[in-house]
């Protein structure tokens, strides 16, 4: 069984021994080429951009970024097989269209079955990152941190450190401590993820951390602006002003 082009596989697990056992099984399959190994989520996000694998063997519990967060940050389509000791994430795994969900200790037969599924199904399908964004039923809300991809780097912003966010077409511009980050997400979606007690939609294009608001000033006739502690001026729509008043 020699495929014309081997399946390009990336292994992601923070434990060396867990990667070793996968490598051992996969190396016996001539149709598989292991293009890299990553010990954490940051490396994985970068490696997916650089090595362009067809398939990811992905652990879930890892430091800094967990497996789902890695998928959320990927910029290209890739088939995913989760390998984990935890069975409680299975439902969410299939909601992000994982090809398979393998439990540790993992057997060679299960790996073979997962490979067969990938070959049968191909790597085609909707981009995983989009699916992850859509399907987060068991993700605790409100979320307590935001992940932003910047080239091959990943920034982690604590939700409490976010000052305000501005809608920019398909992106949101996140402002935190004088720095800003661009994230591929709609403002509506971001608003739904954040704590409504803390973040208020002051305008169609603005979501503001209410703890940052220093004062509200009249602007032109019939309109107002919010001034943040650092002096930033945020437009207030009529309904936005009502929401702020309701809040305080």
């Amino acid at each position, binding site marked *: 069984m020699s495929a014309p082009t081997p399946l390009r596989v990336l292994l992601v697990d923070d*434990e060396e021994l*867990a990667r070793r056992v996968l490598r051992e099984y996969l190396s016996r399959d001539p149709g598989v080429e292991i293009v890299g190994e990553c010990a954490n989520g940051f490396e994985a996000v970068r490696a997916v951009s650089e090595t362009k694998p067809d398939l990811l063997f992905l652990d879930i519990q890892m430091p800094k970024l967990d497996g789902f967060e890695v998928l959320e940050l990927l910029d290209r389509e890739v088939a995913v097989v989760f390998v984990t000791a935890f069975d409680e994430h299975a439902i969410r795994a299939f909601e992000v269209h994982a090809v398979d969900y393998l439990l*540790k200790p993992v057997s060679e037969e299960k790996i073979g079955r997962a490979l067969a599924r990938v070959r049968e199904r191909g790597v085609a399908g909707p981009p995983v990152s989009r699916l992850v964004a859509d399907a987060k039923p068991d993700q605790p809300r409100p979320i307590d941190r935001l992940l932003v991809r910047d080239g091959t780097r990943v920034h982690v912003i604590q939700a409490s450190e976010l000052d305000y966010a501005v809608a920019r077409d398909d992106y949101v511009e996140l402002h935190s401590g004088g720095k800003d980050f661009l994230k591929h997400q709609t403002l509506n979606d971001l608003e739904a993820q954040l704590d409504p007690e803390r973040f208020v939609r002051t305008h169609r294009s603005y979501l503001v951390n209410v703890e940052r608001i220093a004062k509200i000033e009249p602007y032109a006739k019939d309109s107002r602006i919010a001034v943040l502690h650092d002096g930033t001026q945020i437009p207030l729509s009529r309904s936005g002003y009502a929401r702020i008043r309701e809040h305080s």
Partner: protein
Amino acid sequence: MHPILSRPSWLALYLASWIPVAALFGIALHVLAQVPLAEAFADAAGLTAVLAFVCLSAWYPSRAQPIAGAGTMGFLLTHAVAAVISSGVWLALGRAWVALLERDPGWQGAGARYNSLLPGLFLVGMLFYLLAAALHYLALVAAKSRQAEQKALELLVQAREAELKALRAQIDPHFLFNSLNSISALTSSDPASARRMCIELAEFLRRTLVLGQRERIPLAEELDLAEGYLRVEQVRFGSRLRVEREVDEPALASPVPPLLLQPLVENAVRHGIAQTLEGGTIKIAAKRDGSRLHVSVSNPRDPDGRARPGAGVGLRNVAGRLATLFGTEARLDAIAGGDSYLVELDLPAGEVS
């Protein structure tokens, strides 16, 4: 032995409480029976002193004849007979005391006056006996209910401790699955290490089961268990996991509840080492300070980490066990620093067995 007689301080208090009775008795003899004042008080002093001890004797029939379960007739008969005997003994001893007084020429006629009062005094003696018996029954009932309360409390503590111990003895299944996965990885590449890890794992499991059965174990054994656990995790985490131990000699022998430290060490791995890219050092420290034992576990921590579901359960269980076993005598403090986490226990060091 009567509970009052067995404690000198109680006995002193008891006798002191009879002093006003003696005074009233003297006044009654003088006013009601026209006994000369000095003689009345002298009579009363001796009679009351004897009466105080005669009343204590009511304890024996009261204890022998419990209020519940005895036949009414038997109960009444016992105390009627006891009342007659007590009163008789009291008056006989009282007669002896008066005879002693009569030796003094100034007290002539005291014996005759005493004899004339005998019927009335006999009734008084019976009444005092019955009053004493009633008070003894009250005391017995109170003691019994206190005992029952104490026992119920002890049972509750035992039940809670058993529950927490059982909870503790449950081994984290993820630890097992991950360890087995490591062994699986080692079987082909490093069979000797795979075997060593199997043995370490078995040793840890066996010790967890055995230690959980005991009431108290020396801290040294608890530390051995934790180190066995860390040796297994060491295989998984490699250079990410480092362990430091700083334990003074007297602390090692101090008895501690089994599996008290283990959840803290497991947390240090699960929420510390496993959540940081570079890992770090888990430091276990213990020292004995007079009658107190201080134990602490610290680990590195990711300051940007997520709040993880399930965090805090282990800590709550340890705090619960400490509260059950030591009440306010023990405390647990968890201190989250920027990139480190520290849990400190402070508990009674206990007797070294």
